[in-house]
């Protein structure tokens, strides 16, 4: 028989773990399906697990390391009685209550867990370029994790693709190791925040390739060069380099909820602001999975709190709690 829980939380970034802390303190014994290890941004602890110093999370005047911060979130949730399982939800059925959640084989007749209420905090996953050689060259010069792999590019020429905060943060970080970092960006201006832009422009190891789209990553055993198209002049050029770090944005992890929860055209879950209610009663969403605007650790944590309070009040209104 599947176990029944008052609250099941899917995801363990700032949103999921804040929801866990609040629901645990409300004596709802939340079960958190924290996800499985991965080297992309889709893993226990969420996107901060692949960052270094977080400078804008309030309460840490000297900054804090992303993985250390998430480890503390987790410890705090466990302290109040949240149960965390290092597994990934493979299927959910929200058509009736209690909701049904599968782990492992999604075709199994019996779900793994039953949930009176569900908090969705599955976050967003880093996008890849989707080029033919990209997957083959992961681990051979193409990287999804600058903090893991920067070390291997000492005194080498490398590129970061993208123009947002994460691209600039990676580029700045990578200059600790690399001889040069070229930021390849589709447009002629950056989306990144002013402080990150100022830092990148002031860094002598960083240079910019504007209006440029990567057409191909070339190399047999390892990355040797990229082919770039200048979108203004339509000219193609080749750049010799040994590493490519991709930071072109994110897409929400909402595949599980396709056809069950209302989504925007871009796949982000729709919530009934200012609440965290989704289109299914008893299902709440928080963090990046429902936020295509702010996407900060602190806004995620805040919305995790909202979802926890919404779930708690909703369970109370159902009676029996």
């Amino acid at each position: 028989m599947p176990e029944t829980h008052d609250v099941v939380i899917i995801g363990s970034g700032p949103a999921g773990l804040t929801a866990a802390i609040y629901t645990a303190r409300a004596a709802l014994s939340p079960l958190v399906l924290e996800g499985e290890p991965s080297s992309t941004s889709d893993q226990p602890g969420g996107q901060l697990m692949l960052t270094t110093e977080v400078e804008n999370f309030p309460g840490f005047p000297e900054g804090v390391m992303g993985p250390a911060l998430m480890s503390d979130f987790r410890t705090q949730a466990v302290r109040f009685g949240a149960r965390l399982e290092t597994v990934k939800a493979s299927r959910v059925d929200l058509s009736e209550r209690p909701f049904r959640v599968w782990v492992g084989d999604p075709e199994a007749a019996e779900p793994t867990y039953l949930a009176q209420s569900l908090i969705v905090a599955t976050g967003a996953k880093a996008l890849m370029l989707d080029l033919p050689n990209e997957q083959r060259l992961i681990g051979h010069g193409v990287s999804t994790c600058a903090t893991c792999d920067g070390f291997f590019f000492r005194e080498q020429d490398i590129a970061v693709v993208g123009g947002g905060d994460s691209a600039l943060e990676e580029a700045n970080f990578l200059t600790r190791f690399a001889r040069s970092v070229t930021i390849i960006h589709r447009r002629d201006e950056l989306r990144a925040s002013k402080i990150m832009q100022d830092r990148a422009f002031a860094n002598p190891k960083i240079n910019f390739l504007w209006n440029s789209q990567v057409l191909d990553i070339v190399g047999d055993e390892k990355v040797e060069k990229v082919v770039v198209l200048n979108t203004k002049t339509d000219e193609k050029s080749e750049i010799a380099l040994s590493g490519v770090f991709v930071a072109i944005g994110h897409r929400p992890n909402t595949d599980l909820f396709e056809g069950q929860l209302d989504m925007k055209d871009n796949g982000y879950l729709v919530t009934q602001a200012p609440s965290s209610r989704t289109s299914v009663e008893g299902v709440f969403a928080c963090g990046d999975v429902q936020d295509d605007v702010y996407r900060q650790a602190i806004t995620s944590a805040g919305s995790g709190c909202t979802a926890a309070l919404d779930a708690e009040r909703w369970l109370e209104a159902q009676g029996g709690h």
Partner: protein
Amino acid sequence: MSEKITNLTEATFDEVVNSSAEPVIVDFWAEWCGPCKMVAPILNEIAEEQEGKIKVTKLNVDESPAVAQRFGVMSIPTMIVFRDGEIDRRIVGAKGKAQLMAELGL
């Protein structure tokens, strides 16, 4: 770390990998690599559960960069399986236990 896991260094790498009767997994890792830390408990479990079938070892790339370079490791975690001293398979990136077991052929 499980007692059944051997820490390799540049000095011990060849001897351990070449003399092992069973296949050897070498987990290339470093302290500053978040995904490496996530894989560590899974490798502990595999070392305990698959004892006698596969030998689990770790190599710190900070301490033994030459070995990482020799095998062209450019991303961690990378897990290389050696069979009779030869590379049998190579797994790049952190994975969940079920997927890792499948990719290791266990």
